[in-house]
């Protein structure tokens, strides 16, 4: 197993106003990630799908130890990294990289493309000088930025959004990581170019044998690239399974609602629509019982009393819903 996450939690304390500090000692927390468990195999693509506020991005950062978890355990390549110091994490960093959503913000505008991609090689003392440059040129070629010599010397300002994201991918791949967290890597890319970025990521996966933890709000994109998908809501996994099972036989009412809200480019086709009222509640005041019960069209008396646990319904297909208990 490449990565194992057990009962992972991240609570952010809420800043109190002066009056609140006088009146109460009680701390309040944003429960961004509230006890999730999953595992990833080498070379797999696992997507975390959810609306904003579901905790998917926080999970990605926790897994890479970019932020410290409140509770739980993270095991990477068989090693418990939950409380490793940043110094001890350093040699592991080259095996775990991240690609961000915004290719305009993730690249230093003063750094030439070649330098930006070479940087991780120097930091991790993998290569330097001529050898490093050759590795960068080779990587530029692999991510489709050709002729590589031209892109090596150019600045990000002269590149399109799609080209910048290719640079960000090259930079993440140059250390040959085993795990790459990709946080909405195509949501800011023009529609006509998205597939080429996704396909590039999939080609690199095959070539380098790496795994992606893919974070997205877009179920259609997740469906296209993942082996396994987890649907998150307010810091918890509501349903998790192989991509095919999840789409053929979605179990959780929330998954069904998400699926039915996605526009489908086939007009006139009547689909079963499940309409939800309202929006995702605040992660400070998480509803009791099942956290989805306030919006659930299927809720019954148990739902606001007891929190459903993630249960394996079929091999590899999990759901946290009282309808199935």
């Amino acid at each position: 197993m490449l990565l194992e996450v057990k009962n992972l939690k991240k609570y952010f304390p809420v800043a109190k106003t002066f009056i609140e500090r006088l009146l109460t000692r009680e701390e309040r927390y944003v429960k961004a990630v509230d006890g999730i468990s999953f595992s990833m195999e080498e070379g797999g693509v696992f997507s975390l799908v959810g609306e904003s506020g579901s905790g998917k991005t926080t999970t990605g950062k926790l897994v890479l130890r970019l932020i410290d978890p409140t509770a739980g355990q993270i095991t990477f390549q068989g090693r418990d990294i939950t409380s490793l110091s940043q110094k001890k994490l350093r040699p592991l960093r080259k095996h775990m990289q991240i690609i961000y959503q915004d290719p305009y913000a993730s690249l230093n505008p003063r750094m030439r493309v070649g330098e930006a991609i070479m940087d991780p090689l120097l930091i991790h003392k993998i290569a330097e000088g001529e050898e490093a440059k050759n590795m960068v040129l080779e990587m530029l070629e692999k991510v489709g930025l050709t002729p590589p010599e031209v892109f090596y010397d150019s600045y990000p300002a002269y590149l399109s959004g799609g080209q910048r994201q290719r640079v960000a991918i090259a930079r993440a791949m140059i250390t040959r990581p085993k795990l790459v967290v990709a946080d909405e890597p195509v949501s800011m890319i023009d529609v006509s170019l998205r597939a080429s970025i996704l396909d590039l990521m999939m080609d690199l996966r095959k070539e380098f044998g790496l795994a992606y933890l893919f974070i997205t709000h877009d179920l259609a994109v997740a469906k296209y690239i993942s082996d396994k998908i987890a649907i998150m809501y307010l810091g918890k996994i509501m349903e998790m399974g192989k991509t095919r099972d999840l789409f053929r036989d979605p179990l959780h009412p929330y998954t069904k609602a998400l699926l039915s809200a996605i526009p489908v480019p086939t007009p006139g086709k009547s689909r079963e629509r499940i309409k939800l009222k309202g929006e995702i509640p605040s992660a400070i005041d998480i509803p009791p019982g099942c956290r989805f019960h306030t919006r659930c069209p299927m809720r019954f008396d148990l739902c606001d009393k007891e929190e459903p646990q993630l249960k394996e319904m079929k091999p590899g297909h999990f759901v946290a819903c009282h309808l199935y208990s």
Partner: protein
Amino acid sequence: MLLEVEDLHVHYYTKRGVVKAVEGVSFNLDRSEVMGIVGESGSGKSTLGLAIMNLVPSPGKIVKGSVKLDGKDLTKMSEKELKEIRGKEIAMVFQDPMTSLDPLMRIGDHIVEAIMAHEKISKEEAKKRALELLDEVGISKDRFNDYPHQLSGGMRQRVMIAMAVSLNPKLIIADEPTTALDVIVQDQIMDLFSRLRKEFGIAIILISHDLALELEVADKIAVMYASWLMELSNASDIAREPLHPYTKELLKAIPNVELEDQELLSIPGSPPDLHEPPPGCRFNPRCLNKMPICEEKEPPAKIVSGRFVKCWLYGR
């Protein structure tokens, strides 16, 4: 006909030269009709939306063409006449409601102010109308006194829509109104739009990069590419049998959750720099059906079985 746009041209006069952001766009829109304008970044779709209201920001200018609302040409109106039209007859909704809402003003007052700017009614009456409008767009009346930051992104967009409909406009132009929102909230906002058109007969122009969304909610769709209108027809025709190679490619590039083992294709290359557009057809460097003439001459605007397309494939 509610809206007639004819041969509209918008240019931006930048330091690097003239950018022709909208070139020769024509279309009509009926009452309670929903038209989608779809295109990628830089296609000119947002400029087109602004030009319809004669609101193109400097250094941009409408250089040619007309925009007639109920027969009156907005491009020939004075700023004073335009103020009467904007808000009252055409209203606009943008992607980010936070930039359009005053953070220090209660949401109810936003709507009251919008009403009183155009109508001579008492504050009491305006407030009554504002409360009704909040209800209409699905916001509880007791949030009248909330400030914008107390609302979620979806609710802020509902406030914007309440302001937009407060003066019973004939047309709402919505520019990427749900791009920053989650799919479930997007679905709710689209339901709201469809109710407004049914109940009040409001026509809607929905500008979006999301062709799947347009196909689902629009009656007809205008496909823009590099300032040109490439194709315009019924949504169902576009989905079943797109005419323009760009539309065809775009349809293959969008993931469809209903399909199993879909192969997504991306369009090679990227949209042109409008400072130096390619000669001939603007799509020719990326087109799979390119012919020699496509690199030489601008394709003609053709009507093919009642549908508009700008492509050499359909003859001269």
